[in-house]
């Protein structure tokens, strides 16, 4: 009994050691989204190309889709752009582009020069939709299911690894769910 008591500090030390060692490899930039499982917030925003065209969350619902926040001032967005273009050519799901805190003319020019991977372009000049979605920097991508519920948030540029390991398996699963529900 007495010997066992002497080992208690060692056990506590090892426990703390394992706990803190694991903490060393956590990425503090990865934050849980508070919005997973919640419906897409309501919004009224202009279409990027046509200012008089007002879009709302109703224009998005119905299918499993991806919401991608991007801006011309954001280098990581330029990095992920070719990958998004490739995805849009594969026609797997609608990708909605939300131009976040940007200038309309610059954004239109960028899409004309680099190609436009987006099904619909929404212009969020003041970052109001971004704020409602808890966006803290571009690029950020949300996966929304066929009922308009936010299912996943990914902060950072999309590349092959993220797509094939995280995003695509989740999208496939949601599309199966959607089919089971009878939606397209």
């Amino acid at each position, binding site marked *: 009994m007495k010997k066992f008591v002497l080992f208690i500090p060692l056990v506590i030390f090892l426990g703390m050691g394992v706990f803190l060692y694991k903490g060393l490899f956590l990425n503090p930039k990865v*934050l849980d989204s508070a919005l997973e499982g919640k419906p897409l917030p309501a919004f009224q925003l202009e279409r990027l190309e046509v200012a008089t065209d007002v879009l709302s969350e109703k224009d998005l619902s119905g299918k499993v889709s991806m919401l991608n926040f991007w801006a011309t001032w954001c280098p990581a967005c330029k990095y992920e752009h070719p990958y998004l273009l490739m995805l849009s050519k594969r026609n797997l799901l609608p990708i909605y582009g939300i131009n976040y805190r940007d200038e309309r003319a610059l954004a239109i020019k960028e899409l004309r020069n680099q190609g436009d991977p987006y099904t619909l372009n929404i212009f969020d000049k003041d970052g109001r939709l971004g704020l409602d979605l808890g966006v*803290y920097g571009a690029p950020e991508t949300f996966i929304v299911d066929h009922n308009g519920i936010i299912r996943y948030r990914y902060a950072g540029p999309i590349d092959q690894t993220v797509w094939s390991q995280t995003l695509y398996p989740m999208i496939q699963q949601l599309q199966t769910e959607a089919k089971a529900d009878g939606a397209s």
Partner: protein
Amino acid sequence: MNMIAKWVVFLAFALFAVSAMATPVDTYEFKSADNQKRALSLSHQLRCPQCQNQNLVDSNSPVAHDLRLEVYKMVDNGKSEQEIIDFMTSRYGDFVLYKPKLDPKTYILWLGPFGLLIFGLFIGYIFVRKQRIQPTEAGSLSAEQQAELDALLNKNKAK
């Protein structure tokens, strides 16, 4: 000479201290000084999601600017502190709170120190009690030893 050098160093540090305290300037007019005080104290308690070790007032990042203005506006519109905190956490998660909420997930954080204190007191109590018992054991002498001790003491007295 030495004194002057000390003053130069002191002034240099003082200058740095001032520049390190500079925070972004917003032009926002509050409806009342009281609102301003409330909004600023609230913004100091909220963490910027972008620059993670700065609060909303310290940070220069665009998202902190937006959130700051949102807090200011909500205060001016007469929203309560709880409503504003709920607004922030429903979007950015509990992460934005510098002072974590008390809920099952954070019990260990809030109650852990008290648990450790009680554990420490308990261990201390056991050790102290052990120490107390030992002297009585060591103090009990055999009859032979007692006789020897008495003899020694008497010898000293006789002197």
